């Protein structure tokens, strides 16, 4: 796991850590079953408050990215996790709704949006 904190970004420390762990899980750098450092280890390494790392892990657990096994530590949940799937579904719906709003402003009808989506999908599969 890699965490780099900026003191000048204006983004709260807990959010920086949370986003970095999330993106490493989504990109597959952190895999299902990987053990995360303990709350106190992470706080010590980054020289931050234990309460800050507690907040990060609590929120990641709520969003379905990790699971806290009492007495054993925190583990990454894989793509198979129902919670993570649910979370990604919500994420997709939110982005699609934004896309639809933009399409409406641009005067595109729904079949044109469908076409654009199909095209993007083909491009993705070529990659």
């Amino acid at each position: 796991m890699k965490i780099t904190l900026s003191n000048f970004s204006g983004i709260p420390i807990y959010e920086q850590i949370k986003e970095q762990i999330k993106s490493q899980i989504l990109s597959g750098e952190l895999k299902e079953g990987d053990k995360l450092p303990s709350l106190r280890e992470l706080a010590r390494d980054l020289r931050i408050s234990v309460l800050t790392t507690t907040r990060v892990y609590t929120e990641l657990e709520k969003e379905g990215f990790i699971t806290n096994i009492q007495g054993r530590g925190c583990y990454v949940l894989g793509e198979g996790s129902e919670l993570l799937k649910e979370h990604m579904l919500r994420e997709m719906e939110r982005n699609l709704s934004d896309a639809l709003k933009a399409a409406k402003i641009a005067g595109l009808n729904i079949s044109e949006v469908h076409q654009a989506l199909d095209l993007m999908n083909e491009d993705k599969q070529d990659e």
Partner: protein
Amino acid sequence: MSDAINVKNISKIYPGFELKDISFNLPKGYIMGFIGPNGAGKTTTIKLILNMIQRAGGTIEVFGLDNIAYDAEIKEHTGVVFDNHYFLDEWTLNDINRVMALFFSNWQSSIYREKLEQYQLNPAKKVKELSKGMRLKLMLAVAFSHDAKLLILDEPTSGLDPVARDELLETLAKFIQDGERSVLFSTHITSDLEKIADYITFINNGRLIFTGIKDEFIDSFRLVKGGKEDLTPDVKAHLIGYREYDSGFEGIMYTEYATLFPNLLAEKSSIDNIIVFTYKGTNGL
């Protein structure tokens, strides 16, 4: 969650100074920053916790035990680091090993020798020959050698260079690793606390201003800025303290009030600014 320290409504009266109705608790396993300007009552509070002076009112529990009735038990498990050390100048570090073994039933010479080596302190040296940074390390070595569960530091970083301060923070972070040990850390060098502290207790002029989670502390204040014409009586009434200058003003406001004045620039404040402007405000400067 049990508390390492639980202070309830304590007070102390000196001629010209009154510590009034101070309450806070430090949960076991965490670091609390104890802040406030000089003369706010930080050292008085610490002395009351350590049963070094008599209180006028209130209760204090350390490890869940009354701090007067269980004075000896508490001292066994409490390490203190003061700005001024409490050793005799003529003692060598070897002498301290022998003396402390008399004070503490759980004193471990092997750990003491280990720590001296780790901190690169020569056991043959006398206390008076040590630099300020070395004395701090000596006091830490003593605290660790009787397996302290609570570390109370009073202004340990004043007069230390950045390297020594960083080493201290590292030591404290390691100290609380097992979740059983706690730290109360009074300082006016707040950059030390900005990241590492879990809780903050802020007193000013003998009164408690805030106690709680550090992030909530920082988040409950905003540094607001504006032009001279923005400093209306209404704005003034909501400012805790401020500074006026030719091209405008800046000051500290509770976050809930800051939203009432959307024309002002409101940003997150450093702990330093919160202390400075609170001091200015309460002292009518």
